[in-house]
Every structure is written in C-alpha cells, then in structure tokens.
C-alpha cells in the first residue's frame, strides 16, 4: 500500500540491485528453493493455513452462521473446540470460514494493483521523461496519506464491505507496485542490455515484453508477498471497525471485535483470531524473504 512503512527488506536491502543479471533458468533456482529454509518454512505455514481455509466447508464442525442462544459463550470443550461466541456460534468453525474470507480477499485484492502498478512502473522506468515525473509526483502525493486513514476514508466513501475494499485498494495500492517496479526498471536500463537490444534493432514492445517485463514481474511478485500481509491487516482492521467484510459473514477482525466485550473472562475469543493473522504474517514474510533469496543471482 501506498503509505505503508517503507524499509529495506531482508534479503534485498536493494532488491532492484538483486536483479542484476537475473536469468530465468528454472533448474538451479528450484534447487536453490529446495534448500532455502525460510522459503520452505513460509510455504509450509501458508500451505497449512490455505488448506484449512479451502477445506473449511468439510472440516467445520457446525455451520459458521448457526446461532444457538442456549449455548452462548461456552469455554472450549470437546463439543466446541474453541468454545462459542456471544450468539452461541462455534468459534472453531467461524475461525476457519473467516480465514477463507480474509485470505481470499487478501490474495484477490492485490491482483488489480499488481497488474496496473507493474505496467505503469515498467513504462515509466523505461521511457522516463515526463510520464516518469508525473508518476513520481503521484507516488509522493499518495504516500503522504497515512495508510489506514486513506483506506478507511476511501472505503467509507465508496461504501463498506468487499466492494469498497476492492475499489479502495485498486485506487491506491498500485502506487507501491509502480514505485518498486519503476526503480527496478531503471536499474535494468542502466545495465545496458536493453540499450544493446535496441541497438540490435529490437522494437520497444519486444524489449519490454521479452527482456524487461519478465524481470519486473518477478520483482512485483516478491513485493506482493509482503504487500498481502498489509492488505490482510487492513482487511482485518476494517472488519474490526465494522467497515470490512460484513456480518454475519465471519472475519478475523470482527471476531476480535465481538470478543473484546468478553476480554476479561473469555480471553481466547479475541486472542485466537489475532494469532491467526500473526501466523499468516509470519508465513508470508518467510516466503517473501525466501523468494527474494532464491531469485537473487549468485
């Protein structure tokens, strides 16, 4: 997202530089991937979470929306592994379904920004000149807005819920991708082989399509692993504020909000959905670090 924290990421103090001489040869890279501990750990954590989310309809123990007012706020038991909430709904089942909604939203929401941002960033970095200046100014402007302030206001303006989330991120999140991709395109430009290709008579379209985009897309995907963490955090935060995924659909954020009133006696109601978010974050961060390592040339 635009105004999210900016810093060098592990394994890529300057990821753009890491691109130097990057050649997409799958075999050595796969071998590298198989030995990268952080990649494997991240993929495992994320794999488990995604599997649980995908299997939710089969492994939930009660319908996630089913209320049972005679069994509200139960402590964890064999019948209800994580107890029940204030409406007697099974927390374990809701947790699974919430994961399904939150993870799916996080992964799908970034598709539009990643596409727009990669295209704009590549073109600006390749052609430079005034389009690049305009893009840089837009980046500066969007980055001036505190992340949550911009997202919350946009979702409020276009309407709460999934639709609002999609529009808000489509409008703002492309900026960060454009920023990352632009700087890596500039680095590639400086390496000279795009100039060489041009000297060899290749058209701009061919240079962009065959030589530059494959690299910038890789870059954007590595960046996306950390971006999705922020998107999921924002979706959960919006849910907590009542602006995100709308009730009765379960969402980790609204589950935390619902549990807040019972914090002193039923601490797990708010704590466990939060831990799911943290676990997702750890998985994605490890995966991102690992990917950056594997894709970095020797």
């Amino acid at each position: 997202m635009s105004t999210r924290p900016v810093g060098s990421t592990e394994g890529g103090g300057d990821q753009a530089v890491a691109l130097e001489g990057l050649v997409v040869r799958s075999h050595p890279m796969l071998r590298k991937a198989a030995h990268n501990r952080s990649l494997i750990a991240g993929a495992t954590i994320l794999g488990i979470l995604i599997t649980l989310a995908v299997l939710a309809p089969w492994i939930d123990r009660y319908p996630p929306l089913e209320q049972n007012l005679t069994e509200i706020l139960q402590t964890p038991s064999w019948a209800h592994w994580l107890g029940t909430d204030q409406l007697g709904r099974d927390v374990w089942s809701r947790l699974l379904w919430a994961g399904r909604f939150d993870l799916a939203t996080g992964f799908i929401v970034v598709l539009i920004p990643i596409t727009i941002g990669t295209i704009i960033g590549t073109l600006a970095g390749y052609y430079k000149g005034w389009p690049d200046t305009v893009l840089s100014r837009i980046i500066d402007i969007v980055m001036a807005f505190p992340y949550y302030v911009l997202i919350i206001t946009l979702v409020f303006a276009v309407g709460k819920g999934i639709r609002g989330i999609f529009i808000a991120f489509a409008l703002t999140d492309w900026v960060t991708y454009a920023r990352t991709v632009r700087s890596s395109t500039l680095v590639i430009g400086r390496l000279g082989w795009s100039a060489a290709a041009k000297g060899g008579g290749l058209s701009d379209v061919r240079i962009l399509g065959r030589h530059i985009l494959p690299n910038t897309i890789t870059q954007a995907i590595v960046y996306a692993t950390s971006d999705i963490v922020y998107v999921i955090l924002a979706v959960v935060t919006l849910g907590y504020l009542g602006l995100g995924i709308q009730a009765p659909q379960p969402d980790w954020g609204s589950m935390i909000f619902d549990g807040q009133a019972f914090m002193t006696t039923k601490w797990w109601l708010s704590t466990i959905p939060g831990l799911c978010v943290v676990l997702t974050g750890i998985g994605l961060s490890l995966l991102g670090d690992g990917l950056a390592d594997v894709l970095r040339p020797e």
Partner: protein
Amino acid sequence: MYVIRRLVQAIPVVLGITIITFFLLRLIPGDPAMTLLGNRGTPEQIALLRARWGLNEPIWIQFWLFLKQLAHGDTGASLFYQVPTRTLIASRIGVTMSLVAFATVFSILITVPLATIAAIRKDRAADQVIRAVPLVGLGMPSFWVGLVLILVFAVNLGWFPVGGWGDTIPEHIYGLILPALTSALAIVPLLIRSLRVGMLEVLQADYIATARSKGLRELRVLLVHVARNAIIPTLTLLGINIAFLIGATVVVERVFQLNGLGSLMLSAISNRDFPVVQGVTFVFALSVVIINLVTDLTAARLDPRIRLS
C-alpha cells in the same frame, strides 16, 4: 540550495493532497448530499448542502469553493455537530500529537538498542533472535496488540488504566504509555530491519576501522563514531514511516478510548459526517508532509552529503 529545492518539492504534494481530499467526496455513489443526510435531512437541508458544496455547479467551481474554505482553515461545518470542522479538529489534535510524539520516542527506545545489538553480534544468537522480531511483528494488527496489552497490563496486572487519558498532565502521560507502545510496535519491526542494515554498513566503514586501529575502546567507538553516523539513517527512516505510525494511531485511539483525531474520524464515519472526515484526512496528510520536510531538512543539516548532492 537544498532547503529551497526541498520546499519547492513539497508544493505539488500539498496541492495533490488537496485535490485527493476534494475528490473523496465525489467518490460517494449518487448524490453525496442525499447519501450523507439520508433520512435525517429534510429536502430543504439537502438543497442547502448541495448549494454549500456547489453540487449543481461544474466540478472546477466546486473545487474553487473547497479551496476557499480551506484557505480559511476549514473543510466546512460538521453535519452532525453544526460547528466548523476546524473547531472539532483543534480540540482533538493535542491528544493525537502527544500520542504520536510518545510513540516515536518509544519506537526509538526499542529500535536503536535492538538494532545495535543485532549489528554488533551479527549472525550470533542475539542477532538471530532480534531478526525474528520483524517476522512476528509485521503481521500483528495494532488493535489486537492493544487489546492484548490491555488484557495483560491493565486487566490482569492492573499497572495501567484500561483506557481514557484522565484530567491532569501526569494522568495524560500515564494513560498514553500503553497506546504509545502499541502504536510504536506497528513500525518497530520495519525500523529494526532497516536500522540493522544501516548499522552494519556503518560498522564496516573505513572510519570505524580507523577508530579501532587508533586503539580506541570498543564502547567509545560505538558511542562516538557508530552512534553518530547511525542517527541520520534512523531519522530518515522515522520520517518515511511516520505516515504509517500516524495511521496506526487512528485505530489505537479507538481501542484505548482516547479522544484524538482518529476517534474523531471514526465517529464522523459512523455519523456520515463527511466534512469532518475530509478535514481530519487533510490534516493527517498535511502533517505527514510537514514532518517529512522537517526530518529531511534536519538530516541535511546533520549530513553535508545530503545537502550537497
């Protein structure tokens, strides 16, 4: 001149945030006046609001009206409280500024020692542990961290108030400790990562080798030579991440029931009080621009390399 160049750079950004703040209203589907006032507005009130925003005029006249209001330091009267937005903002801004200031201090107090230890003990146990902090911390939602801190330190241990910020200055400070810590934790993971890299660079610099070869004690090298040169990257990093920190305080204020700008914005959202939402958004963005300007100018003062580049 660096100072002038940097000031000139800020102008299009301020203009840009003005335009975006203006267009936020136009994003509301349908007729904004109708959507916002909804059932609580009579047809006359809706017509009045349309006139005030110039909704019947072309867009550039609407923008001109908006700019004129902004020049008077306002984004219009609150639809809910019927007072100028700036009055509401002025009464709340102190809380948020104190929270942001406290949170900044906390994030420095946490980041600098940890990043330093990690850099000095590179690849040893301490470094491995500290490097795991960002991994876990990045994915922690601020509101959840706040709730957990309340549960542990306010409810169970009873060391801090559960929320609110009291009436006297000592009470304010006391009440701000947990919220400030929560907000700081939102950016600490990133600061640690980046500052550790920055420190490693400083440690490998020639002047550090020189200082050591002169026979200076390691502590002196660290305090005098390393720390001094690490201040600039820390400052720049803080400047870049202040926007995220400010954003985090919005949610943190809600969790800790602090009556700052964030709470004002969130309650304005539930009241569909758009002028207030607009005003707070603008003030937030403007403060980020100003803070960035100040950190950049300070960094340039401290480091001639920035000034002269």
